[in-house]
C-alpha cells in the first residue's frame, strides 16, 4: 500500500539545490535580525545575524553581565562544548605546509592555533631563523585588519570595483599594467597572474631585494637558459667560494646547509672549502681556509684563478695582471679544483655578469656542470630580474604606466628606485599594494588589498625543478583578508575559489607525474597524501650536457670588464662599502618581528641595530673601538654608524647590514631605527637606495667611500657577546697568556686528525681526566646504578654552521621572552641557548668557531648544591630541573654555573607594560603564540634550558600509550628537542645515553667527543665533538705560525 509522501513546500518537491543545501543543516537559516527590524543596509550585509544568533548574543550578554557583576577576575579559558574530531585538548596537531618564502615546513598547532614552525622531515631543508620566527608574524598586532583605500578602511567590494574600473580604463587607454612582485614560487599564483595579464595586457616584473639576477643572466648568455643552477655541495669535494654566503643568506641556503655538512665528517673523505671574501660571512667562518679579498680585487682574483686552473689543465689562459691573496690562496684553490675535477665547485655571490661568466667558465672547464651544478634541474628560489626592475623604474618616470599592482613586495623600501616609486605611486591610474602588513609601499599606494599570512592560506610552491610543496591553512584568517590568487581570479572575472583552482591545477599538471608509490591512487588520495606529506618530489632530469658557449673574444671582453673594475679599486684611505644581509634581519621584511631583532647576528653579535663593520687593521691604526661613531661619506651621501671592529675583514672594506630604517613596518621595527642626534641619523638607515644597476645586476656596493670618526661621540650597541677571543689581554706576572682553548674548544686539522697527533691529544686529555677528584657521590658514573633513561646531548662542532635558527626555535618552544635593546645591552638577553663565537689566531686572518651553549645538565651540578630552597634539582633521568614555583631568586645557582647558562627574570618581561609593552606578550593577539606546555615565568625567577622537558614527557607518554606498556623504551626518533629539530645539518643529537644503540651514546664513544671545562668535573650531559678543519700538514704549520697569538687588545 502506498503511503502518501508529504512535502512541506514547493522547494522540497522540486528538490532544488538551495533546498538540499538547507536541508543538510541541523537548523535552518533564520531571518536575520536586520531584516526583521528592516534596518538592513548595504554595508551591514556581510555581518548579518539571524534570530538564533540574537538569542545566543542575548544569552551570552546576559551571562557575561552576570559574571561581570561577580568580583572574581574573568579568565578567558573557554572549554570546547563540542570537541572537534581532529583535536584532543592538550595534544598538538602537526600540519605540513609551506612558508611564504617557499620552505616546506611542519606547523605545530595547539587547540587550533599555530605555535611553532618545524622542518618538514620529508624535504631536505633546514629552516632559517626567519622561518622559525614567521609564526610570530601571524600574531603581529600591527597587521592590517582589512582592505584600505589610502589610509582609510574600505570594503572588498569597493576595492574590487575600483580595481576593475581602473583596469578597464587602462586597457581602454592602452596604458601599461604592471604586476610587481618578489620571486613567486607558487606555480598556481604565477599562472593566475599570467592569466590576468593575458586578459588585460601588461607584464609581470619580478625582483628580489637581494638579487642574483646576474647569475641567471650569465647562464642565459652562456647556456641559453635564464636559470639559477641547483648546486650540489654534497657532491663537491672542493668548494671555492667568492663572497658567496651559501650557508647563510644565499637563496637555497636552507638546503645547501644540509648538503654542505654531508661531507664534513672527518671519518669519511672530507670536503675542502676555501672562501675568498671581504666581510666575514657565516660561510667564511665555516671555511677550512679563508682569505680576505677586497671586492675591488675580486674580478682580477677570479681571472687569476681561471688562468691558474687552465694553466694546470694545459689550456690557453687570458691576459690578466698577476694577483694573489695571502698565503698563495689562489694557487691552493686552483690545485684543489683541478685535483677534484668534476667533483669541485666554484661559486660566486657577486651580482655581476662578468664575474659570473668567468665562474661559469671555470666550472665548465672543470666539467662540473651536470655534476656539482645542475642547470637542467634549476633552483627557483630567486627569479628576479634587475634589468626588468630598472626598466619599470624608467617607465614609471616617463609616465608609461597606468596600473601598478605590487604583490607582497616593498619597492619603495628595498630597491634603489625607492624615490621613483614614491613619486609615482600617488599619480598612477591605480597603485595597489597586496600585503598583510603595512609597509613603506602600501602606505603610499591608493589601495591596499590585505592578504592572509601564509599560515592562514592555501597555496603551493615549486622550490626547484624537482620539488613541489603544498601550503594549507592552519588557522582561520584572523582578519578580513583575501589571498592574492583569489583577488586576481576575481579581477580576471573568474569566480571560482582558489582552493578549487589549486586542486584543479594539481590534478591537471602534477597528478600525472605522481611517483610509483601513488601510481594506483585516484586524485583524491593523491591530493590528501601529498597534502599530508607537504612535498612532492620529481625525479631529476638527466643532464643535457650543454656546455658553456661563450666565444674566446666574448670571454676576453668580460675579462676586460673585470680588469677595468679592479683597476679602479679604492686608494689608500678609501673604502669599498658593501651592504650585506645580516643573518637575523636579512632583507628587512621581518623587521617587525622582535624574535629576529633580538637574535644576534652570528658574527657581529649585534642585536636591535645597524652598524658598520670595520676591518681590524684599520681600527687598530686609527684607534677605533666598538660603538665609536663614524661618518661614512660617498657620492655626496653621509651615513652615521656605530663601529663594530671585525676580525678577518678585508682591508679597505666596510660593511653595513641592510634591512634597517624601516619606517612603515610597525612598533617593533621602529625600535631598531637608531637615533636622531642633531642632524645626524645614527644607524637605522635604509641603505637599499645606494645600490645601483651595473654589470647586469643591482649591486649593493659603493666605491670610494671615506670614513671619519665623529669626535668624542659613541652610540650604544646591544651585543650579546663582547669578549671574542679565548686568549686574554690581561697578562699575568708569570707571563701566562691564559689560553683556554683546549678547555673550551677542541679543534684540530684534518692532517693531524689522520696522522695521530690528535690521538695524542685525546690521550693527554684522558690522562688529565684520571686525576680529577670529586667530593660527591659518584653514583652517576656507577654502572651498577642503572637508571631507566639518562638524557644526554651531543653537538658536532663540525656540523654546526652557527646559523642561529636553533635559538629562535628554542625561543618559540619555551616562551623565552623578548627583552629589548636596553636589556640586551645590560647582557640580560633571556635566550636559553646561545651560540658562542670565538676567533683564534691572527686577527687579520682568524679562525672562527661556533659553539652552541645551553644548560649542560651536569651530573655534578654546581647549581644544585647551592640553591637554599631546592628549586633546582636533579631528576632521575639526568635532567637538571627548575621548579619555578619554588625559586626565590637568590641567583646563587647562576653565579656558580661555570657555563653561565642560567637566565634570571630581572623584570616582569611578559607583562611589565611600561617597559616592555611593545612586545608580543603584551597583547592578546601576540600571546596566542605562547606554547601552553611551558610556564611563562614571573620576575625574580631563574630559568634555563630544560632539554625541552615538556617534549620528553610528551614523547614518553605517547610511547607508553602506543606500546600499551609502561616499560616501553624510548628510541631515537621518538623525541627531538626544539633545537635539535631545527638543526637541519644534524649537529645536535639528543637521546637516551643508557641505550647503547642510540645515536647520542655512539657519539659519546667517538674520540672527538669532549666536554667543556672537564677539569671542574661537573660531568656535563652535553658533549661536543671536536672541530676538524680540512688543512694539510703543511698548511697546519703555516697557519699555526701565522696565527701565533699577537696583540689581541682590539678584542677587549
Amino acid at each position, binding site marked *: 500500500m502506498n503511503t502518501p509522501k508529504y512535502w512541506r513546500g514547493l522547494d522540497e518537491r522540486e528538490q532544488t539545490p538551495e533546498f538540499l543545501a538547507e536541508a543538510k543543516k541541523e537548523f535552518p537559516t533564520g531571518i536575520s535580525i536586520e531584516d526583521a527590524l528592516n534596518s538592513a543596509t548595504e554595508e551591514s550585509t556581510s555581518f548579518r545575524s539571524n534570530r538564533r544568533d540574537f538569542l545566543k548574543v542575548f544569552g551570552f550578554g546576559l551571562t557575561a553581565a552576570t559574571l561581570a557583576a561577580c568580583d572574581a577576575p574573568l579568565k578567558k579559558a573557554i572549554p570546547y562544548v563540542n570537541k572537534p574530531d581532529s583535536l584532543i585538548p592538550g595534544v598538538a596537531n602537526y600540519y605540513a605546509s609551506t612558508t611564504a618564502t617557499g620552505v616546506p615546513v611542519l606547523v605545530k598547532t595547539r587547540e587550533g592555533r599555530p605555535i611553532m614552525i618545524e622542518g618538514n622531515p620529508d624535504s631536505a631543508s633546514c629552516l632559517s631563523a626567519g622561518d622559525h620566527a614567521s609564526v610570530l608574524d601571524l600574531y603581529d598586532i600591527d597587521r592590517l585588519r582589512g582592505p584600505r583605500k589610502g589610509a582609510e578602511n574600505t570594503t572588498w567590494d569597493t576595492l574590487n570595483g575600483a580595481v576593475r574600473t581602473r583596469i578597464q580604463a587602462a586597457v581602454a587607454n592602452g596604458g601599461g599594467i604592471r604586476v610587481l612582485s618578489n620571486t613567486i614560487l607558487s606555480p598556481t599564483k604565477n599562472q593566475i597572474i599570467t592569466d590576468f595579464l593575458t586578459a588585460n595586457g601588461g607584464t609581470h616584473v619580478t625582483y628580489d631585494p637581494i638579487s642574483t639576477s646576474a647569475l641567471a643572466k650569465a647562464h642565459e648568455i652562456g647556456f641559453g637558459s635564464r636559470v639559477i643552477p641547483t648546486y650540489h655541495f654534497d657532491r663537491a669535494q672542493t668548494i671555492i667560494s667568492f663572497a658567496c654566503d651559501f650557508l647563510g643568506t644565499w637563496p637555497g641556503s636552507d638546503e645547501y646547509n644540509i648538503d654542505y655538512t654531508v661531507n664534513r665528517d672527518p671519518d669519511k673523505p672530507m670536503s675542502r672549502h676555501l672562501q675568498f671574501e671581504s666581510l666575514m660571512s657565516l660561510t667564511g667562518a665555516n671555511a677550512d681556509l679563508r682569505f680576505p679579498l677586497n671586492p675591488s680585487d675580486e674580478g682580477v682574483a677570479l681571472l687569476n684563478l681561471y688562468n691558474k686552473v687552465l694553466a694546470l689543465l694545459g689550456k690557453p689562459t687570458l691576459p690578466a695582471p698577476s694577483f694573489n691573496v695571502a698565503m698563495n690562496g689562489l694557487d691552493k684553490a686552483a690545485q684543489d679544483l683541478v685535483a677534484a675535477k668534476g667533483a669541485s665547485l666554484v661559486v660566486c655571490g657577486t651580482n655581476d655578469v662578468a664575474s659570473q661568466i668567468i665562474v661559469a667558465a671555470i666550472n665548465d672547464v672543470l666539467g662540473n656542470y651536470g655534476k656539482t651544478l645542475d642547470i637542467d634541474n634549476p633552483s627557483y628560489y630567486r627569479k628576479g630580474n634587475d634589468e626588468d626592475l630598472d626598466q619599470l623604474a624608467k617607465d614609471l618616470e616617463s609616465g608609461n604606466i597606468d596600473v601598478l599592482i605590487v604583490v607582497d613586495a616593498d619597492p619603495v623600501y628595498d630597491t634603489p628606485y625607492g624615490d621613483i616609486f614614491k613619486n609615482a605611486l600617488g599619480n598612477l591610474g591605480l597603485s595597489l599594494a597586496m600585503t598583510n602588513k603595512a609597509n613603506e609601499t602600501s602606505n603610499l599606494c591608493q589601495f591596499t588589498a590585505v592578504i592572509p599570512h601564509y599560515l592562514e592560506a592555501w597555496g603551493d610552491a615549486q622550490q626547484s625543478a624537482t620539488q613541489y610543496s603544498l601550503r594549507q591553512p592552519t588557522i582561520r584568517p584572523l582578519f578580513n583578508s583575501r589571498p592574492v590568487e583569489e583577488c586576481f581570479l576575481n579581477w580576471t572575472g573568474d569566480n571560482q575559489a582558489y582552493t578549487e583552482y589549486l586542486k584543479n591545477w594539481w590534478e591537471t599538471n602534477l597528478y600525472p607525474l605522481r611517483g610509483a608509490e601513488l601510481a594506483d591512487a585516484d586524485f583524491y588520495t593523491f591530493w590528501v597524501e601529498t597534502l599530508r606529506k607537504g612535498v612532492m618530489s620529481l625525479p631529476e632530469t638527466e643532464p643535457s650536457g650543454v656546455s658553456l658557449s661563450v666565444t674566446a673574444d666574448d670571454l676576453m671582453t668580460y675579462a676586460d670588464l673585470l680588469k677595468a673594475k679592479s683597476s679602479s679599486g679604492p686608494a689608500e684611505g678609501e673604502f669599498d662599502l658593501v651592504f650585506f644581509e645580516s643573518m637575523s634581519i636579512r632583507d628587512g621584511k621581518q623587521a617587525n618581528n622582535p624574535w629576529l631583532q633580538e637574535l644576534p647576528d652570528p658574527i657581529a653579535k649585534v642585536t636591535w641595530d645597524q652598524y658598520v663593520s670595520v676591518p681590524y687593521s684599520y681600527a687598530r691604526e686609527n684607534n677605533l673601538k666598538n660603538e665609536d661613531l663614524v661618518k661614512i661619506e660617498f657620492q655626496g651621501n653621509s651615513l652615521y654608524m656605530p663601529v663594530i671592529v671585525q676580525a678577518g675583514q678585508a682591508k679597505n672594506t666596510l660593511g653595513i647590514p641592510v634591512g634597517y630604517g624601516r619606517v612603515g613596518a610597525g612598533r617593533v621595527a621602529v625600535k631598531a631605527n637608531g637615533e636622531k642626534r642633531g642632524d645626524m641619523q645614527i644607524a637605522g638607515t635604509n641603505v637599499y637606495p645606494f645600490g645601483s644597476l651595473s654589470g647586469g645586476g643591482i649591486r649593493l656596493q659603493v666605491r670610494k667611500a671615506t670614513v671619519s670618526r665623529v669626535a668624542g661621540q659613541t652610540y650604544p650597541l646591544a651585543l650579546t657577546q*663582547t669578549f671574542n677571543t679565548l686568549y686574554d689581554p690581561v697578562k699575568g706576572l708569570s707571563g701566562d697568556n691564559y689560553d683556554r682553548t683546549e678547555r673550551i674548544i677542541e679543534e684540530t686539522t684534518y692532517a693531524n686528525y689522520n696522522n695521530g697527533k690528535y690521538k695524542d691529544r685525546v690521550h693527554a686529555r684522558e690522562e688529565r681526566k684520571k686525576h680529577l677528584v670529586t667530593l660527591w657521590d659518584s653514583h652517576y658514573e656507577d654502572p651498577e646504578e642503572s637508571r631507566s633513561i639518562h638524557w644526554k646531548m651531543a653537538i658536532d662542532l663540525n656540523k654546526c654552521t652557527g646559523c642561529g635558527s636553533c635559538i629562535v626555535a628554542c625561543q618559540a618552544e619555551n616562551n623565552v621572552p623578548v627583552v629589548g635593546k636596553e636589556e640586551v645591552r645590560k647582557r640580560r638577553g633571556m635566550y636559553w641557548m646561545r651560540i658562542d663565537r670565538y676567533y683564534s689566531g691572527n686577527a687579520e686572518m682568524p679562525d672562527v668557531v661556533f659553539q652552541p651553549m645551553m644548560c649542560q645538565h651536569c651530573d655534578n651540578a*654546581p647549581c644544585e648544591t647551592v640553591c637554599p630552597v631546592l628549586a633546582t634539582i636533579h631528576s632521575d633521568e639526568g635532567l637538571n630541573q627548575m621548579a619555578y614555583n619554588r625559586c626565590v631568586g637568590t*641567583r*646563587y645557582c647562576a653565579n656558580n654555573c661555570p657555563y653561565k647558562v642560567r637566565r634570571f627574570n*630581572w623584570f616582569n618581561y611578559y607583562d611589565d607594560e611600561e617597559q616592555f609593552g611593545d612586545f608580543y606578550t603584551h597583547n592578546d593577539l601576540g600571546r596566542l603564540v605562547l606554547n601552553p606546555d611551558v610556564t611563562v615565568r614571573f620576575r625574580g625567577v631563574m630559568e634555563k634550558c630544560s632539554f625541552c622537558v615538556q617534549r620528553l614527557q610528551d614523547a614518553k607518554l605517547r610511547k607508553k600509550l602506543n606500546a600499551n606498556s609502561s616499560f616501553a623504551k624510548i628510541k631515537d626518533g621518538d623525541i627531538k628537542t626544539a633545537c635539535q629539530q631545527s638543526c637541519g645539518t644534524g649537529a645536535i643529537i639528543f637521546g637516551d645515553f643508557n641505550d647503547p644503540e642510540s645515536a647520542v651514546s655512539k657519539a659519546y664513544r667517538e674520540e672527538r667527543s669532549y666536554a667543556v671545562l672537564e677539569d671542574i668535573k661537573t660531568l656535563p650531559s652535553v658533549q661536543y665533538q671536536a672541530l676538524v678543519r680540512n688543512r694539510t700538514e703543511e698548511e697546519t704549520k703555516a697557519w699555526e705560525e701565522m696565527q701565533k697569538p699577537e696583540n689581541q687588545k682590539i678584542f677587549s
Partner: protein
Amino acid sequence: MSHVRSSIRQKWVTNTTKYGQITDGISAPIEAKPNMLWLFFTAISGGVMLMGFGLIGWTFYKGIGAWGLNPTVGWAFDITNFVFWVGIGHAGTLISAVLLLFRQEWRNSINRASEAMTIFAVLCAAIFPLIHMGRPWMAGWFGPLPNTRGSLWVNFNSPLMWDVFAISTYLTVSLVFWYLGMVPDFASLRDRFARAGRKIASAVYGVLSFGWEGSSRNWSRFEIVSLILSGLATPLVLSVHSIVSMDFATSVIPGWHTTIFPPYFVAGAIFSGFGMVQTLMIVTRKVYKLEDYITLDHMESIAKIVIATGSLVGLAYMTEFFTAWYSGSLWERYAFANRMFGPFAFAYWIMFSCNVITPQLFWFKSLRRNMVFTFIISLFINVGMWFERFVIIVTSLHRDFLPSSWAGYYPTWVEAGILAGTFGLFMFCFFLFSKFLPVVNMFEVKTLVHDIEKPDHLKEKEAVAG
C-alpha cells in the same frame, strides 16, 4: 660601694675621683633636652634611611632589574654590602665577649657602643639577603614548609641556608648580650629620673631594667650570665664570618673557591669592625666629652688590634696570590691576574692600599695617639674593606670560565642609594642609641677608677666619728 684598685695597674679612666662623676657625665645627654646638632644629624640620617627604604620599595615594585646586575654578575652591591655590614658587627662581639674572657678590662669603656654598633650593623646586613632575592615575599621558604605531603625541606647543603642560621643566631645572641649589659645602667637611669621627678622616663627605664635592685644576688647572677653569654658569643665571632665566607668558598668560581676564606674573612671582619669602632668612638668621645673614659690609651689599644688584623688580612691577600700561582690552575691564575690588571683593577688597588698599606702607619706611636689621623685611617679602612668584598664578588664573577659570557657591571643609582640608605639606618640607630641609652657602660667603667675619693656622706660620717 667602693673598691680598691692597685696603683700599678694601668689607668684607663682619668680625672675621675668619684663614682657620681661617672654617672652624671654619662647620664647627662640622656637627661638633657636633645640639642640642635643632634636633631639635625638624626634628621639627616633618618632621611637617608627613608630614601634607602624607598629605593628598596622601588626594587620590590620593579624587580631586581632596577639594579645593574646581569646573568654573569648575579651579585654585586647587594652581597658586598651584606658581607661588609656583617663584618662591621664583629668588633662588637669580639670586644664584649672575647676581651671579657681574656680579662681585657679596657674594653669596659667601649663595649657598650661597639655592641650597639654590632646590632645596628647586623640589622643593616640582614636587609640584603632579604632584598637581594628575586621574590622576597617568598622568604619564608628558607624555613621548612608544612604541607600535605609532609614538610618541604630546605637544602642543608647550601651555604645560603647556613647563613640564615648563622646570622639569626648572631643577631639573637648579640642582642641579648647587649641588652643584658645595659640592665644595671637602666636601673641607675630609672632611679635618677625618679629622683628628678620625671615619672614617664622613670617608668620606661624601670620596665627596661627588669626590676634591677643592685643586690649582691643581682650582681652575682649578672656576672654569671655575662660569662655564659660571652662563652656563647665567642665561637660566633669565628663562625659567623666563616660561614659567610663559605658562600664563596664552596662554589666552583675561581677567586671564590679558596680554602683560606674562613680565617681570612674573620680577620677581615674584625679589622673592619675595629675600623668602624675607631670612626664612631673618636666622634662619640669628642661630642659627648667622654675623653676621660675613652682615653687615648683605649684608642691606642684599638689601633694595635687594627694593625694586627690588617696585617693578617694583607697576609691572606698574598697567600691567595701565591696559592693561585702555585696551583698552576689556569683559572685561578687568571682570576688573580684579572683582579690586579683587569677592568676592575681600580677596586683592587683601592682595597690593597686601604687595607694593607695605610694601617701599617699605626706602627708609629705618635700616629696611634693622633685622633685626627686615626679618624682618617679608620675611614680608609672602612672604604678598603667594602672594596675587598666588592673585589671578591664582582671581579671573580665577571670573568670566570667562558669568555663568551664575560660581562661588566655598572651599579645603578638604586643600588648606590640602598647602600647609602643602610648607612642612614646605621647612623640613625646610633644617634637614637647615643641619646636614649648610656653610650658607655657606667657600672663597668667604675671598676676601672683609681684613687676613688670617699663619698661625701662617708666623709661626714668619718668626721663625726673622728
